[in-house]
């Protein structure tokens, strides 16, 4: 008997193709962004179907939510509407051939993958009790492969640094009416609580620093859009400090691990959980500040490009 889920999966896959095509084929930039966000939500659903709730959470919060907000923000600060031009056919040809090669290579990789390679599942499962956490994804991200996470934070910090150097058109939120304050009063405290919950959950279940940071950043963006808090008016230096502290703290952990265990990014035995929770808590606040700062743009008052 066939799995009844197959109908759902086929609809989902078909929907993703349609939405991806609409996102690429739309003439209006706004429509493209909305389609991209929809694609993110469908992708998140497909991760749920692939039994990867961690990736699904990250995709929904970062891929569909925060990225969409950043794209819309970018669109609003463009001086000219982006001009739509049909690419010349040689460029279109080259792009088409390259895409086909990538599709072919991915397909070949999938077909030729040896049966036995089930990813890192077994290796992680064997050593999970040494990691200090019980969620294998968190164990990989913050213990076994924490070097990768460190570099991700570095990329995020670099993006913020470049944006601060280039400057941006300052955000000019419009008045949002009398209903926005009660809304913010519900949403902002909830975002703090939910971020804390996701952070704590990360040790044993799907959740963790990035998802928590995205939720916290969303709460911050609500405050900023409602003009309840203007990071440019004050605290500019403080916010830059908070943004930098994630990377700085992680680097300090790497050095501390080197000194204490003579191996970079290795945590002292027995204290793994404490170290991971400390890193994750710092990262949550710092990444949330970075994401919100990327949304706001120029942090200094009066800076324009």
């Amino acid at each position, binding site marked *: 008997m066939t799995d009844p889920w197959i109908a759902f999966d086929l609809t989902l896959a078909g929907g993703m193709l349609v939405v991806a095509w609409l996102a690429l084929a739309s003439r209006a930039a706004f429509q493209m962004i909305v389609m991209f966000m929809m694609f993110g939500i469908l992708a998140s659903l497909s991760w749920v179907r692939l039994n990867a709730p961690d990736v699904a959470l990250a995709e929904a919060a970062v891929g569909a939510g925060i990225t969409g907000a950043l794209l819309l923000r970018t669109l609003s600060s463009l001086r000219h509407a982006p001009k739509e031009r049909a690419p010349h056919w040689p460029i279109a040809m080259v792009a088409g051939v390259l895409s086909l090669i990538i599709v072919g290579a991915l397909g070949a990789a999938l077909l030729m993958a040896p049966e036995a390679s089930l990813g890192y599942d077994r290796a992680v499962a064997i050593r999970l009790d040494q990691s200090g956490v019980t969620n294998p994804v968190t164990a990989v991200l913050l213990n076994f492969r924490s070097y990768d996470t460190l570099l991700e934070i570095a990329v995020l910090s670099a993006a913020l640094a470049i944006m601060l150097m280039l400057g941006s058109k300052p955000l000019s939120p419009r008045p*949002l*009416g009398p*209903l*926005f304050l009660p*809304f913010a009063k*519900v*949403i902002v405290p*909830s975002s703090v609580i939910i971020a804390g919950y996701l952070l704590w959950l990360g040790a044993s279940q799907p959740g963790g620093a990035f998802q928590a940071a995205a939720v916290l950043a969303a709460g911050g963006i609500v405050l900023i859009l409602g003009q309840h808090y203007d990071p440019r008016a004050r605290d500019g230096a403080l916010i830059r400090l908070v943004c930098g502290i994630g990377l700085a703290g992680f680097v300090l952990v790497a050095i501390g691990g080197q000194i204490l265990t003579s191996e970079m990014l290795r945590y002292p035995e027995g204290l793994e959980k404490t170290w991971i929770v400390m890193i994750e808590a710092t990262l949550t606040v710092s990444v949330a500040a970075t994401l919100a700062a990327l949304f706001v743009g120029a942090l200094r008052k009066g800076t324009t490009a």
Partner: protein
Amino acid sequence: MSVQDIMGVGIMVLGTVFFLAGTVGILRFPDAFSRLHAVTKADNLGLALIALGTSILAADGFTAAKLFLIWILIAVSGAIGGHLIARHALRDKS
């Protein structure tokens, strides 16, 4: 199938009817305001019913409480989102 299952699934199916009505409203209604009217009401009630249905099926009270929280948050966001879009549309019109 227990009574609980039937109740839960039944309420969820009823919820999807509201989603369907909201979607038809978006596609069929003539202007932004009536489309908003259709989609905010229908989605809100549809989601409420689906959340209620899933809480009946949920294993424990904590999951049910989380589902209730999700419904509250989406209801509040949906209401304010609809309000903001209507405000914007009204300003564009005048």
